[in-house]
């Protein structure tokens, strides 16, 4: 990944997530993937904390990742870009939910989710096994993987971001 495309990843911002503190540095800086190819993918994690104000309202601030404690909300951002000269089709972004993190949902462009890493779908359609041999409806905390299948083709030079929200267990 070139310096130019890395800058583009930062410039893209997090359009789909409301970040009331835009000046705050990303909790974890994105680093370019080392692999070469016509497509790049980078990821970063932002930590948000809800802070109760003296007037009773709650506001959300971005805290440095080094201060993330259990209960903090995390936004996992996946940024992608076609750095080649030809359009790409059937692009799929996948992200296993990190250990010690519980999936909560996505503010926009909801991903397909999986509770086993094999079958993907809407959360409402998924079921998980119970110890007594039956199944129950899956909840957000059961999600182990998310993926986005990008519609259409990704033109040369085009890129974007997807994100999901989670909470540090």
């Amino acid at each position, binding site marked *: 990944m070139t310096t130019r495309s890395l800058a583009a990843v930062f410039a893209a911002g997090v359009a789909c997530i409301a970040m009331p503190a835009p000046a705050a540095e990303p*909790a*974890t800086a*994105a*680093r*370019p*993937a*080392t*692999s070469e*190819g016509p*497509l*790049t*993918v*980078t*990821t*970063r*994690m932002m*930590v948000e904390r809800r802070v109760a104000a003296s007037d009773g309202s709650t506001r959300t601030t971005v805290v*440095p*990742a*080094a*201060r*993330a*404690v*259990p209960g903090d909300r*995390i936004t*996992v951002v*996946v940024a*992608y870009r076609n750095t080649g000269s030809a359009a*790409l*089709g*059937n*692009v*799929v*972004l*996948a*992200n*296993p939910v*990190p*250990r*010690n*993190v519980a999936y909560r949902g996505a503010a926009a462009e909801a991903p397909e989710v999986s509770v086993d890493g094999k079958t993907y779908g809407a959360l409402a359609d998924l079921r998980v096994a119970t110890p007594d041999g039956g199944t129950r409806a899956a909840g957000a905390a059961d999600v182990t993987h998310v993926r986005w299948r990008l519609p259409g083709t990704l033109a040369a030079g085009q890129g974007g971001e997807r994100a999901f929200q989670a909470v*540090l*267990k």
Partner: protein
Amino acid sequence: MPVNTARAETRAGTLVTNVATVTVREGEGTYSLPSNPVAMLVAERLDVALARTDDVAIDVPAEGAAIPLRLTNTGNGREAFEIAARPSDASVAVRLIAIDADGDGRFDPAVDRVLTDRRTPLLDAGEAVRLVVLLDPAAERITVAALSVEARAATGSGPAGTAFAKAGDGGATAVTGSTGALAAVAVPIGVRAAAVPVLSKSQSVRAPDGSSRPVTGAVVTYRLEARFAGSSAAARIDDPIPAGTAYLPGSLMLDAVPLTDAADDDAGRADGRAISVALGPVGGFTTHTVQFQVTIR
């Protein structure tokens, strides 16, 4: 006995890593590419809880009083806690703070571990220990209203969100949680009198010339006043005859009643070395006065 509370919280110092992949199907080929890994070191949240383990009325008798407490590390890391115990006035003194290893709410030097530096050992996240604070009477009248006990994380404390760089487990940042890493409990203490007897001694000198100069031949009258706030099974007052003086035979008195010097039926005896008065069983709120005389040689 340490009690571990089941907690699902991620431990401080844990590295949370994320890697995404992108997959493209192009014609016949499919290729996948991993992203950069991003890692987040989970910070140590410093929190603590402190509570009494009983609600009985505490008073402070002569032998002291034990106040049992329970301290819980409610943070997500291994942490030691500094304990401070402050009485509301100086009529009692803190003898020691110990880990109540057998959890009986009393201090037993054979099993309980005294926190000499007033600091607990490292407690795991969620771990609780029983503590016992021992109070001793420090004044004739116990006037203390409360004992304030405070526990704070050894790493640091302060308003929620106070951060201590690299001070947490695994080199993570330590940051105070909602408790501010400080817990306090006020234990009300009854003002019931302590049973510690108080002995006060006064003297008066009368010289042969009628003055109060302590010259040879002068008579010194000693007055010992013993005040008993609580009852006592067998009290006795002993006092040595001061060097350079001689006991004046027949001068021993208890509550203004003369006692014989011989070790006989009455409560007192006296010889050249000491006087001794056996008071026997003594009720609470009583005062006894012993008087004797010596001459200066």
